[in-house]
């Protein structure tokens, strides 16, 4: 069986994890083995990125390469062996999410694409887009507050964290949309079930 990766691309709060989890349950019910990968989830360097992020927030290239290393470790040591065994991999953030992160921080698109060219192309890719209002509400519900480190504070130093975040989300999602195929874009500021149905329909086409 060839490598089967389904990527969920989007900013934090776009519904990446929730939709990935729903698809995981769906696929498992249908009898598929599923493995999950995602940003900052590697054994090699995932925890360390979380620890040092605030110290290297202006070292964009370093942070980008750290994220790439993190993804590569998961792919090589965990995902590839599972795919060989017939599993489907679901990625909670993949190359487009990373590239969007870099684009809004001024990293060169060509350089990033060269670096990322070593990763296998996902079989199916969903670009999840939502309104800043909705995204911010989801994050506050989940964490209880807006974490300055994930709000793109290195880009938008503004009077208040809400406005900073709003403007960061807009820039990030503009970048992500510009990188994505139109037919892969899914708007998640709707009923969860409705969005899930749309995603599952696409996956059914693939697995049937």
């Amino acid at each position: 069986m060839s490598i089967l990766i389904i990527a969920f691309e989007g900013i934090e709060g776009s519904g990446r994890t929730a939709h990935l989890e729903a698809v995981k349950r769906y696929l498992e019910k249908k009898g598929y083995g599923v493995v999950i990968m995602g940003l900052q989830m590697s054994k090699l360097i995932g925890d360390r990125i979380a620890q040092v992020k605030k110290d290297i927030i202006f070292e964009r290239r370093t942070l980008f390469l750290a994220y790439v290393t993190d993804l590569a470790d998961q792919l090589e040591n965990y995902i590839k062996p599972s795919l060989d065994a017939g599993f489907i991999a679901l990625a909670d953030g993949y190359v487009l999410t990373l590239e969007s992160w870099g684009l809004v921080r001024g990293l060169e698109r060509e350089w990033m694409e060269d670096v990322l060219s070593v990763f296998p192309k996902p079989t199916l890719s969903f670009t999840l887009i939502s309104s800043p209002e909705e995204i911010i509400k989801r994050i506050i519900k989940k964490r209880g507050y807006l974490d300055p480190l994930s709000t793109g504070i290195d880009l938008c130093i503004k009077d208040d964290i809400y406005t900073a975040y709003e403007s960061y989300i807009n820039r990030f999602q503009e970048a992500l949309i510009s990188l994505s195929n139109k037919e892969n874009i899914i708007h998640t500021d709707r009923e969860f079930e409705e969005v899930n149905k749309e995603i599952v329909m696409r996956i059914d086409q693939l697995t049937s």
Partner: protein
Amino acid sequence: MKKGVLIAFEGIDGSGKSSQASLLKDWIEMKRDAYLTEWNSSEWIHDIIKEAKKKDLLTPLTFSLIHATDFADRYERYILPMLKSGFVVICDRYIYTAYVRDTVRGVKLDWVKKLYSFAIKPDVTFYIRVQPEVALERIKKSKRKIKPQEAGADIFPGLPPEEGFLKYQTLIVEMYDKIAKDENFVIIDGNKTPKEIQMEIRKVVGEYIDNSV
């Protein structure tokens, strides 16, 4: 934009380049601000690399990427700001170390070059060239053990350290020789005495420093 001078040292383990880099720094510091940075020395990554090598967790690709991350950290944090503010920055190993080590592990040179394309090219790159046999003799004389990474333990597992060292470092020398011309290496005969080598280096560097002020 750049006011400083960037000097790189390349060569196999045991070639003497680290001593030369450090001697050069002392000399430059008498007249200019100088900074010396070593390969694989980012404060927050080098211990992960060390641990991962020990546990054999790295594949050729992650070996390449994690060293690039280490380099980028030192580049963004130290090398670039220092060059912009006029320092003479001396690198004990620079991107060419990645070129040779990554390709010896099977990663494509083209890709590695692109990975490091953000890094400015040095004003001078000294390649201290010695045969692996000579480097091995030096290490033995200094009574220190051959480190697993010097013996390419990840690509030649199971070989006795000395044999691994010769085999691995021979591949590295071949790669260095292959890229030497394209990358404008100043090739230094590492069989000369350390003093002779340092004099040769200072002669070349002296011109750059005088012209860059």
